């Protein structure tokens, strides 16, 4: 098969189930029917790799992002950890 752009020779590759024709000369790529959709699907599932879920808690819980829990030496916090 010849490249429609530069008339170079196209070579066929298969990567993860996707057929790709690439021109040896201009490096242009040709996709078969349906292959673009396959790539799009693969890209979507790659990006959807879920962000870690927020720590679950009650509806009234404090937002937990960005805390540094730097009150650890505070007297009232230590007192509360250890007494009724």
């Amino acid at each position, binding site marked *: 098969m010849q490249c429609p752009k530069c008339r170079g020779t196209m070579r066929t590759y298969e990567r993860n189930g996707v057929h790709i024709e690439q021109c040896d000369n201009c490096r242009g790529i040709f996709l078969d029917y349906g292959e673009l959709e396959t790539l799009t699907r693969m890209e979507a599932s790659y990006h959807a790799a879920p962000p870690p879920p927020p720590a679950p808690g*009650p509806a009234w819980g*404090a*937002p937990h992002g960005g805390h540094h829990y730097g*009150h650890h030496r*505070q007297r009232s916090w230590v007192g509360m950890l250890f007494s009724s």
Partner: protein
Amino acid sequence: MDLEAELGVIAAAHGGTGEPVLHPTRTDVVVLRRGEVVVKAHSRRDDAEALRLRVRAAASAALSGVLLPPLRPDVLTVAGRAVTLWPAGAPVAHDELDSAPWEEGARLLARLHAVPLPLVPPLPEAGGPERAARAVRRMPGDGPVERLLRRAFEELPEPEPVPGLLAHGDWHLGQLVRRDRWLLIDVDDLGVGDPAWDLARPAAWYAAGLLDPAVWERFVGAYLAFGGPALGDGADPWRRLDLPARAVTIQLAAVAVVNAGREGRELDEVEQSLVEACNRIVRA
């Protein structure tokens, strides 16, 4: 002879040697240690008959390895106060919070909750819910914070009925001591009730943004891993925790208000975050 001196004599009579040392605790309780022996004069508020049942239960074989057993299974009366005797143990170090035994606490609570009730002598109700109600009742003032806390407490939903299990009733890090292993201490609120209340303090600290989420997850994860029954199947721990954690958040805020009032100071940042959590509770 004053109460402290009498407690020292009782400790010596039970094998305690060396100088008596007072252990800092609540203002209505006296805890005195003499070597290997700890003597506790309970609050005048406590029901002496309920305490008798609780101490007897703590002495039962079913709780061995979970709860510190008393030196004697009965309750003495000294100067009109109920007095109990315990072997001494090492508490969790206040300055080593990073290595606090959260998993051990969770494991002991899971084991306590799993003890079949027929194996222990009869017990009164666990004290968690009453402690929360009492803390709210004891706030003297009528400022905006007090009104918020009272409203939050009054608006709490009715608890769903759950089967009563053995519960500690007042769990926090001060309720662990180490002898040859970690054990739960303090039977004052031990009884039958919803065991989720025993997890409610850490839950409340977490929900107020005070407890590091990683520590909370270690604690609750260990509780579930050791088969603790308080959280249903564990898929959504907050289904069972939500109400006790709300109540305990209000309780902790109320205690903070009383403490700050007694010391004549404003709420500090930590205490303020409990009040903010109560604010979110009334809006949730």
